[in-house]
């Protein structure tokens, strides 16, 4: 098992004496992640994501509960665990900014005790995988953010970690760089079996990288399922977009809401709990006026926003 947490709790106490406040950052968190999974660990700001990741990587002691990561207790075996996990925390660089990435890799290889003979091979291998070889001899400061993130990921993978903890890894990247970064993560997982544990506010990161989503809010897990299932099960609504060659009357079944209606187009939202989508489609297609129909899921942002509103499990 890659990660196993039971009843994990972290309470912070701030202020002094009468002004003392108690903040329950993580509350009784249960979480199991199998080897090779790609998990999105998401939640609104202040939900407890970063605190729980800090506990799972050994940076913080929990107030209560137990956790093992790769069989080790993170806060007791931080340095041993560090040899087996990779971490990438948003804008916090793993590289020495004044050096070239290759010089940083040499330092990291020494710190992680990589075999001297293996080191150049490993750097070259990752350079190929991440398409970053050409960047390794430029000063880190001169790299674009997208290029730097590829070099950061190389640094993170140098010691062949079994789990990658990624906290907002695509923040600040442009669209192309984000897409490329996501593809790299998926490729890494598929080719090397690396477990991916990702937090992000970017829904596309979740959609393109993760297979499973764990949603946390107020320090508690409020949802845990496949990303596809989350979309399917949680919002039983579909958006129907219809192209018309002649005007028609919009369907009037219960749960059907018209978003847009012109002579050429019709957009509906259908609550499939009230009316099955087939019933709506049958009515629309029963006549010669429809040129084209598409049924799409609502945007994942909407699904996630709805989950954030839910009470704990």
């Amino acid at each position, binding site marked *: 098992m890659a990660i196993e947490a039971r009843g994990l709790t972290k309470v912070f106490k701030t202020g002094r004496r009468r002004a003392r406040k108690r903040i329950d950052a993580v509350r009784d968190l249960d979480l199991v992640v199998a080897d090779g999974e790609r998990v999105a660990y998401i939640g609104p700001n202040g939900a407890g994501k970063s*605190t729980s990741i800090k506990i799972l990587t050994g*940076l913080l*002691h929990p107030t209560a509960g137990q956790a093992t990561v790769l069989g080790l207790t993170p806060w007791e075996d*931080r340095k041993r665990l560090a040899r087996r996990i990779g*971490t990438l925390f948003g804008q916090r660089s793993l590289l*020495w900014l004044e050096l070239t990435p290759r*010089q940083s890799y040499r330092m990291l290889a020494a710190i992680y*005790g990589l075999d001297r003979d293996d080191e150049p091979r490993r750097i070259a291998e990752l350079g190929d995988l991440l398409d970053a070889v050409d960047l390794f001899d430029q000063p880190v400061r001169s790299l674009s953010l997208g290029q730097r993130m590829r070099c950061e990921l190389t640094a993170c993978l140098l010691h062949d970690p079994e789990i990658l903890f990624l906290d907002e890894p695509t923040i600040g990247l442009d669209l192309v760089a984000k897409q490329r970064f996501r593809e790299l993560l998926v490729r890494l997982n598929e080719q090397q079996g690396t477990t991916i544990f990702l937090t992000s506010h970017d829904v596309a990161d979740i959609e393109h990288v993760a297979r499973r989503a764990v949603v946390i809010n107020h320090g508690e897990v409020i949802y845990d399922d496949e990303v596809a299932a989350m979309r399917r099960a949680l919002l039983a609504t579909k958006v129907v977009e219809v192209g018309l060659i002649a005007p028609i009357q919009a369907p009037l079944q219960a749960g059907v809401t018209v978003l847009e209606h012109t002579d050429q187009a019709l957009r509906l939202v259908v609550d499939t709990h009230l009316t099955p989508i087939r019933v709506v489609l049958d009515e629309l297609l029963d006549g010669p006026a429809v040129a084209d129909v598409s049924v799409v899921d609502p945007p994942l942002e909407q699904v996630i926003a709805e989950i954030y509103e839910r009470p704990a499990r």
Partner: protein
Amino acid sequence: MTRRAFVEAVRGASQRVVAEPGGLVVSLAFYLVIVAVLSGLWRVAVGTNDGNLAGYGAVALTWYIITSEAATVSIHTRLIADVGDDIGSGAIAVELLRPASVIGVRVATELGRTLPKLLVLWVAGGLMAAVVAGGPPRPLALLLAAPSLVLAVTANLIAQHGVAAAAFWLRDAGSAWFLYLKAVFITGGMIIPLELLPNGLERASLFLPFRAMAYAPARLAAGFVEPHLLLEQIGWIAVLAIGAVAVFGAGERRLQVVGG
């Protein structure tokens, strides 16, 4: 921390200084101005005291100043504040997630950053001293001063990291930085040989680690063949290392419990 990691950290940081010599040039210019002014003042002071001040002649004091200043100017000026900022901002977390001593890697990196500067400054200062005052009072003592300089910057770097660790509790090491620099200025013998301090202060400096950071190599370069100063420096390095590792370790544990 393994020897290989230490060597790589020193090497990587040294390469950085050599690859970007701009900072080195600025430090050199600053250093030459400072040593020109201070050594000039000391030569005047010696001249008005029959050519001798507590056993130091004009040439000896010039070599004293070029060495004490090289030992201190070669170190990154804002080191305590920068380390403190990294602790206070939580940037240190990335380093805590490596299987190596945070303070070990940091000290090694700073040592790599300091050594090329130290070499350039001391050689330039030595040339200047030879031109304006005369050659080294005792060349043999210079052979002792060279390793003593390396020990001096090592002691200073370790101590600065230990002081910067205050940021684990205070969030800001800025005030500690100010106090520390003043202590090195005075009780470290950076601008004035300890023998010239008032008696009480001179005695107090005997029991403080700052003398290992400037006075020891400077006194050797001034022609006093006193090898015990190197042993004293090694002793202080051991004490400072134990202290700094303990403070940093306590800070890390606090971070683990209280959060960052």
